[in-house]
């Protein structure tokens, strides 16, 4: 589904140039669950941002199914993103001023889904995420795990083809972390493609494939046999 070829990204400040991505090639099949691992500053978040169309690389190609995404302009990128992708962040990135329900509803509003349908979709996902009794609360009234469920719910409510997760368990304790990972697995089992950045090999063990980055290069790729077999 995703074909990334020769991706390069350089960060420039006044004095230094940092190469974040240095000729990355990556293919992701539909329905796959890919983990990206590597030390700090290896470019894994940058790669995820580029995949999420939040950042533009200097050169290379990024094909989604058969569409070249890097030549799109801002508006097209934004449109493509809201129809096809969902995001889960380490620090949840919920809007404090909005309730759980409203937070989840937001992407549907931007996708111009009619109000009655929005209500149906949000309630459905709230049910699935097991946060029904929390729908009128504000993010700060929830525990970290609950907040991340809301974030996952928000990422899924538009039924995206691709979910991008940036260290989704980074701010959670292991119990809550596992809950979230199980949630992602369930999601993956229903056919959603997931790309996840993580530090934790425990989390990575939930995925089908683990890609190791260092200094902007892919240094190794590992098929997670257990999971893949399970999948088969």
């Amino acid at each position, binding site marked *: 589904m995703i074909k990334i070829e020769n991706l390069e990204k350089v960060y420039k400040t006044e004095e230094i140039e940092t190469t974040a991505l240095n000729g990355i090639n990556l293919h992701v099949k539909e329905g796959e669950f890919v983990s990206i691992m590597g030390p700090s500053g290896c470019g894994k*978040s940058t790669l995820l*941002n580029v995949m*999420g169309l*939040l*950042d533009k690389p200097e050169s290379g190609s990024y094909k989604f199914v058969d569409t070249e995404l890097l030549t799109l302009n*801002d*508006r097209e990128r*934004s*449109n493509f*993103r*809201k129809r096809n992708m969902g*995001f889960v*962040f380490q*620090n949840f*990135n*919920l*809007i*404090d*001023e909005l309730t759980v329900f409203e937070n989840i509803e*937001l*992407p549907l509003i*931007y*996708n111009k889904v009619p109000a009655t349908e929005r209500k149906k979709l949000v309630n459905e996902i709230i049910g699935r995420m097991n946060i029904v009794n929390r729908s009128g609360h504000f993010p700060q009234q929830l525990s970290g795990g609950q907040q991340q469920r809301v974030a996952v719910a*928000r990422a899924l409510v538009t039924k995206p083809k691709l979910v991008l997760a940036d260290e989704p368990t980074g701010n959670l304790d292991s119990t809550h972390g596992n809950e979230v990972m199980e949630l992602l697995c369930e999601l993956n089992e229903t056919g959603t493609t997931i790309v996840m950045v993580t530090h934790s090999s425990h989390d990575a063990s939930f995925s089908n494939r683990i890609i190791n980055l260092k200094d902007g290069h892919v240094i190794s790729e590992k098929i997670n046999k257990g999971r893949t077999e399970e999948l088969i």
Partner: protein
Amino acid sequence: MFKLNLKIALRNLWKNKGFSLINIGGLAIGLTCSLMLLLYVNYEWSFDKQLKNFDKIYLAKLNLKFNGNIATTGAVPYKLTGAVMEEIPGIKRASRFYVHHGSKLFSKGENKFKLKSLYVDPSFIQILRYNFLYGNEGSALSKPNSLILTASTAKKLFGTENPIGKSVKWDNLKELQVTGVIEDLPKNQSIQFEILQPWAFFEQIDSSVKTSGWGSIDCAALFELKDNASVEQINGLLKNFVVNKEPELKSYIYEPFLFPLSKIHLYSQFENGKVVGGGIDQVKLFAFLALCVLLVACINYMNLSTARSEKRAREVGVRKALGSSRQTIMGQFILESLMLSLFSMMIAFALVEVSLPYFNNLLAVTIEINYSSYLFWTVIIGLILITGLLAGSYPAFYLSSFIPVKVLKGFKGSIGTLSFRRALVVLQFSLSVCMIISAIVVYNQIQFLKNRPLGFDQNNMVQLDLEGAFKDPSKTEIFKKELLQAGAIVAASEFASPFTEGGTITGDVSWPGKPATDRSIINYRSTGFAFTNTIGAKVLAGRDFSPQFSADTNTSVLLNESAVKLMNLKKPVGTIIHWDNEPLKIVGVIQDYFSERLGKIGEPTLFYYNVKTSGVLLLRLNPNQSLTTSIEQIKRSTQKFNSAYPAEITFVSEGMQTKLQSERLLSILSNVFGGFAIFISCLGLLGLALYMAEQRSKEISIRKVLGAGLSDILVLLNKDFMKLVVIANVIAIPIAYILMTNWLKKYDYKIDVNYLPFLLAVVASILIALLTVSLQTFKVAKANAVDALKYE
């Protein structure tokens, strides 16, 4: 510690140049405006206060019954001062002074000038204690033919030589002797003149002065009280002073009282015999305006400083973690704002100095900065301190209250401060909107008064004083004929006094059906033939005075519309009325015209033919000939007929221009300073927009990641600000409405306050705010979403 604070403060200012610029700029403009207004307020306030004994000096005022109301005039009987000195204790000195309409000719050889002179009692110069350059207080007015000149008058007539003992010719008739020269009068003194002449001289040239009774009021009177005298006591004795001597005046009330000279300038409006205000209202308004502009500027600073707080939060956190106390940190921020206000004051100072000449020119005043005055420096330093403390206090309290751990972990501004700052912005904008509305209403009213039909044609109309040879009516007649033949004018008529100034009044007119208790007072003006043609007024009934009717020169009168209304005459033309018991026949009715006051209803006026007592000649220029040609012809003829006098021809339209002076002033000031207030408010809004954008950058990024477009974000951010501006409008509109309807009350003819100025203000404020905010929000909305999310 102080040195370190100073270093941080300076580096901070330098590091954030844009921010410092907005901040210093806003404060500087605010300070400039308020300094300027305060200078003006001080100028007005300082009137007559430069006299050493000003609190002991009083002017006589007289309450009179005037067409049903009580009018208060500064004119009193000639006999008042003498009688009061004799009979009422507590008065040290008293002096009459008589002010001419217009000016008199004074000549020294070929140096001829029309100058403003006062006839005064010798004690006048002792009361007002002028500084004598030549001569002395004691003897300068001892002889009837003495003259006291001001320094610049002396220079005009004599150049640099010592004028003492030299002679000056008065009105081309009498040689007078200069006995004193005094320093030029400060502009902020109410009693202004170029020459002083002794009262004895006045009595010589006008025999009626000595015999004038209590019923005629022609001069002003100045009193200096003894140190221990109580003005209340004296006023108690003065109340019935005149009516005790002349009981029949009782029906006119006729109560004199003393009024402080130092208040004359600002308190000139009397109602029912009591002072109700005057220029002071405007001065108070301007002082208030100065405060508002300064407040708006200070609010700005608070907004911008707290907006930047996130960037400073880390510094505060680190300093607190290193053991700095809250006081030190507060000191730091106060010092910073004091430094900013010092810089701003320096800029404001330069701006004031640069713009003062324009300001003076615009308002026709002579304000200058008195650098040697303690008051001035106190105010300057006071303003720096107040501005610095006021502007810096909130940021200091707010920023120093940060809890280090929270700040270092990542800072989130609290909701409480945001609503406080919202309130500040609402306040700012309310003030600005109020000012916009007021400026528009004042402007409309001025335009309305300007465009209102005057009842006469002010263009192509000039006047000249009837003096010298022109005192002889037959000569004036030949002069008129010559100008008519030459085609310079199309009509001419004598008139009592300068056309755009006030004139004489009488209570001695009676008419058929006049109630016995009626004490109506009527204006009277002498004219020549063809008066209505000359001024371009409409004759509503009957006819104008004409040489064809011999009775016109002694028993015919014209009335204006208001007089007919007052007398309730059904068929005015042909009616006989009495003036001083002499029967007079009404031959015509003139439509009311307004040459003396604008915006007021017409006053009943009677016109009679008398070219001998008339003081000016009104000329209607030939509209088919160029103005300069006509004026040249008139000047040449004047020189030929009346060579001893300079040919001074004044345009009536110029006199009319001065009528709206205070309205013009109000309009200019509210426009200019209202404009600045709005500008500063926009800076404030920009500050809040910066703050909000910074505050919400994470939220905006999340929304963008979730698919929000540019327009979604712009609407989201602008909506909040528009709410504030709308609230400000809701507050400002009723206040402005009340203010403006109150202000308009003093006009008999006024505009209806309709929705337009309000609509304009609403639209303008929203548009301006929208532009300002969008400038900032657009940047945030366009920014890369990842940047804000990355550094959490």
